[in-house]
């Protein structure tokens, strides 16, 4: 096991995960800026590719939350894009995926947790939103609360565990077997990165959609 890199500015400690996240953010922002510099009504190949990605995300979101798809599109799409790039960042030699850090996955899970409440209250109102915790019976309130916490914790732990274990397995195989031995594991890393990004984003989408539509059949 390796020691984590830290840069300390007083009480603020900047870890390697944060720095990698900044790199990922910069890469995503640059790609976004480059791909949307000259948007035309008749798109070129780059614009077409970008539009395909966004349209696919949009359709996936609309399939789950048809009434509020555009409202949560930026959050979910950013989650997917960030997690995809962040998960794949571990393939670059010398870098590690930020999502192998529990602090990062917890931050993302907490963001999903609060976003669900935020969008739920925004769409349903505070009273209506809180009412769903008491339905179908107030007795279920503790279970609702436990569910909220557990699913958030599960989001964080699932992503963290999968990505960390993959990187650790690749590192162990590299140490034990040699230079080219971890290549199958790295290929598995690619698939796992895609799958985990999709799972995290899809679960977040379902949580947000559930929060926004929890009272709609009654209303």
């Amino acid at each position, binding site marked *: 096991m390796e020691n984590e890199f830290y840069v300390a500015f007083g009480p603020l400690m900047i870890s390697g995960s944060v720095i990698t996240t900044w790199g990922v953010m910069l890469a995503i922002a640059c790609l976004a800026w480059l791909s949307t510099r000259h948007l035309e009504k008749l798109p070129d190949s780059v614009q077409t590719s970008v539009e395909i990605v966004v349209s696919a995300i949009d359709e996936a979101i609309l399939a789950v939350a048809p009434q509020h798809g555009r409202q949560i599109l*930026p959050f979910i799409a950013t989650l997917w894009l960030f997690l995809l790039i962040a998960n794949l960042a571990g393939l670059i030699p010398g870098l590690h995926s930020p999502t192998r850090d529990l602090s990062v996955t917890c931050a993302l899970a907490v963001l999903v947790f609060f976003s669900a409440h935020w969008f739920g209250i925004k769409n349903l109102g505070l009273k209506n939103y809180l009412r769903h915790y008491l339905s179908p019976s107030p007795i279920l309130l503790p279970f609702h609360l436990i569910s909220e916490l557990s699913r958030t914790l599960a989001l964080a732990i699932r992503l963290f565990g999968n990505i960390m274990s993959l990187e650790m397995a690749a590192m162990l195989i590299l140490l034990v077997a040699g230079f080219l031995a971890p290549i199958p594991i790295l290929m598995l890393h690619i698939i796992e990165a895609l799958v985990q990004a999709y799972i995290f984003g899809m679960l977040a989408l379902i949580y947000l959609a559930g929060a926004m539509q929890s009272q709609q059949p009654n209303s």
Partner: protein
Amino acid sequence: MLMDFNVSTFFLEIINFLILLWVLQRLFYKPLLEVIAKRKSFIDQTVADANTTKQQAEALRDQYQNRQQQWEQEKQAALVSLNQQIEAERSLQLNKLRSDLEDEKQKLQVSVSRQQEEFKKLAEKQALKNGARFAVLLLQQTASDELEAKLTSLLIDKLSSLPNDCTSSLHLLKTQKTIPIKISSAYLMPVELRKQLELKLKALIDGTITFHYFQAEELIAGVRIDIDSWELNANLQHELSAFAELADEIV
């Protein structure tokens, strides 16, 4: 250790994600979705325009079809009218043609009847000529001095019963001193007949008379008496000539 929870990282990651969300919202989603929306709007507008154009085309097609039906009806009506006009004109032309044909037929009938009449006259003339020729041949074969004597006797008898106009004209001849009378006959006239004839002529004409006798075979049979400008004929040639003149008169 990675399993450790770092509060700084936790909050920095939250901030990082919110910044990334803001940046992508500004740089990526918003312009891209706007372009997609514009394109969709453009496509919808194009589709709407196409639908409008299609509806207009269908309306024009319906109008054209209606107009075509009207044209068809007008064409049929015009065709019926034209057929009626053609029928009327045909009847008119047919009647006119029948009338012309009737006129031509009448003209042809008149022409044919006239030709038939002329042909008939020519045939009659030819028949008369043939008859005259035949009579001439027959009379030439049958002529004789006895026939001539009979004709001369007949002339002598007729001289007694001449019309008054003739006798008056003969009397006017006495103003001349000598009146030459030329008597022609186909055969040589017997003396007896000459004397009877001379006596008869002297009885009709007061004055000096000289008689000259000639033989003219062209008379066939009979005599011809020339008194000054007078000519008395009692011969077959003269009768046949009169017969031929009659034939010409008939034609």
